[in-house]
């Protein structure tokens, strides 16, 4: 619905609203947010993703309750939001806010106590264990804080893993794994094991693994949490590149600085969303930038 109206509607608004237009970026620092709000859902100046439109993820009244030593702990208490295809969003909150639990449920690693998750049109509640496995395999690409690579497998074997479960032939797997590893800059590290790679390189292997089945959503859980600022910068650069190519990226972090690499930040506190805002001054990473903490 927004698709066609976005670019035309935006420019008049911009022009009409102030003398400064969005290309004048720096001066428009403060101008941007009123503009975006005034433009309702029409947030096009920042990204191509916005006009790709379709809801790739819908989370509706999600609740997760744990039983911990006989006491019920409500980790997530009624969270609803949607993510459109091609969006780059951050889910932000302090530790214990329920953001990781939320992400695990979105990634079908954990089952909600109540509420609905719809991924690319599929209601996860209706799926059995094998169908969930298939969904994780085809639609979700995980990037974890602790990388979670298989320690005894080489980079290329690690990247092949999702394709094994997708039933691809070995030649196809090797070819694709090689391509993806080259894309994340690990052309020379194909046959290195995780313990022969730096943290940043390991995380790039993990990103390659997340990408290799061309998933609908990339879920990154504190991807820079275990990295030095330079490696963190590289990882954020890759995520932004993927976003530019049209991938949907959901980033979970507790760091404002990292979160600001996304277009939109959903803040979570005590299992509830406290704010859901566009990022007015997006941080950009290039291949050499560092994340300043």
């Amino acid at each position, binding site marked *: 619905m927004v698709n066609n109206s976005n670019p035309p509607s935006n420019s008049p608004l911009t022009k009409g609203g102030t003398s400064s237009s969005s290309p004048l970026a720096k001066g428009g620092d403060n101008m941007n947010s009123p503009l975006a709000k005034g433009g309702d859902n029409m947030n096009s100046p920042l990204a191509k993703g916005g006009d790709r439109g379709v809801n790739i993820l819908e989370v509706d009244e999600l609740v997760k309750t744990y039983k911990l030593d006989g006491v019920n702990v409500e980790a997530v208490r009624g969270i609803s939001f949607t993510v459109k295809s091609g969006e780059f969003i951050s889910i932000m909150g302090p530790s214990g806010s329920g953001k990781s639990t939320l992400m695990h449920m979105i990634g079908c*690693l*954990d089952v909600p106590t109540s509420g609905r998750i719809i991924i690319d049109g599929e209601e996860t509640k209706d799926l059995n*264990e094998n169908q969930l*496995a*298939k969904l994780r*395999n085809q639609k979700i690409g995980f990037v974890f804080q602790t990388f979670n690579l298989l320690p005894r497998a080489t980079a290329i074997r690690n990247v092949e893993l*999702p394709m094994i*479960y997708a*039933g691809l032939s070995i030649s196809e797997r090797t070819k694709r794994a090689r391509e993806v590893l080259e894309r994340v800059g690990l052309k020379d590290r194909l046959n290195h094991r995780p313990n022969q790679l730096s943290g940043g390189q390991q995380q790039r292997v993990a990103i390659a693994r997340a990408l290799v*089945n061309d998933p609908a959503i990339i879920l990154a859980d504190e991807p820079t949490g275990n990295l030095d600022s330079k490696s963190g910068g590289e990882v954020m650069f890759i995520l932004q590149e993927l976003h530019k190519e049209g991938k949907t990226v959901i980033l979970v972090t507790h760091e404002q600085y990292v979160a600001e690499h996304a277009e939109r930040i959903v803040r979570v506190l005590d299992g509830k969303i406290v704010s859901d805002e566009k990022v007015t001054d997006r941080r950009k990473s290039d291949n050499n930038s560092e994340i300043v903490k």
Partner: protein
Amino acid sequence: MNIFESFRLAFNGLNANKMRSFLTMLGVIIGVGSVILLVSIGQGAKSYITGEIQSLGSNLIFVMPGKIEFGGGQHPSGENKLSLDDVRLVGKKSKYMEYVGADIESSDRVKYGNKIRNVMVYGVTSNINKILNVPIVKGRDITESQVGGARKVVVIGKTVAEKFFGSGEPLGKRITIASQKFTVIGVLKERGQSMGVDRDDVVDIPITTAQSLYGLDRVSFIMGKARDSESVDPAIKEIKQIMGKRLKPNEFTVSSQGEMLGAFKNILSILTLMLAGIGGISLMVGGIGIMNIMLVSVTERTREIGVRKAVGAKTYDILIQFIIEAMTLSVLGGIIGISLGTGVSYTIKSLSSLPSEVTVWSVSIAFFFSAFVGVFFGVYPAWKASRLNPIDALRYE
């Protein structure tokens, strides 16, 4: 995921822990190897002993002192009542027997010149070598009149002949048995080794001579040969009847060669089964070793299982990966065990007189049992691994 991928994963998993995989496999190797080896020894003993009994001749009937029940009976108590009179009586009255003879078995020092040997000394009736199918290759056998007259004549086995006389002429020479001089009148045909005993290291003397030499009035065994195979059963009945008039039923036992063969076969089959059972127990212990290692492996690789599930492994994929890992351990162990057991069995065969026999059934049972052990003891750990909740597995430290 196809089955070849599962195998590849399993091999990678085992390869990563070579020492541990090998030690686990060792349990199965020893188990399967011992099943194969023990069964082959049991089988070998069985075919050896039955072969021995059959080689004695055909249609043989034995009368032993006391009451003997084959296959679980007790050995006789009380004294031996079998005498040469019984032999003569049966020989005279029987319609079905071709020969009836007897022997006394002893071991003694035999001297020729300054050469001394310890040999088996058999006191025999004149027909014993006809009953047992042992021809005389040189000279003559002991005659009935020599038995009747308790003459000091001797027929010697081939080993005795060689040791005492080398390539020289033994006939007519005099050898000393229990301080008595005996004249060599014949040489027995070579019979070879039997149960580690040289059956050519023997001498035969007239049974009457032996009785007076050792102060006996009884015989060790009465043995005879029925006219043909149809005569064996009526002959047994007949002998029981004839001897029953002189002796009580519990003072003697009449048995055919076939009965003895059957009895030995039974005993040895039980022995073989027992040996297989012992091997089976060690195989089971090997299986428990597999289970133990697989459980350790599942715990140790919990995060790996979580990662695999997160990237799309189904429950079935995890299950099959671990089952194949366990099966690979046991089947590989089984194959090595079979080769090892077979190898040792053949070594025994070539180094000793025991003709150990590796049978097809013991190999196939051992193989399938080892595969079964792998599945059986692998299923539980594999099931445990496959049931893990992905997020719990990933969080596992």
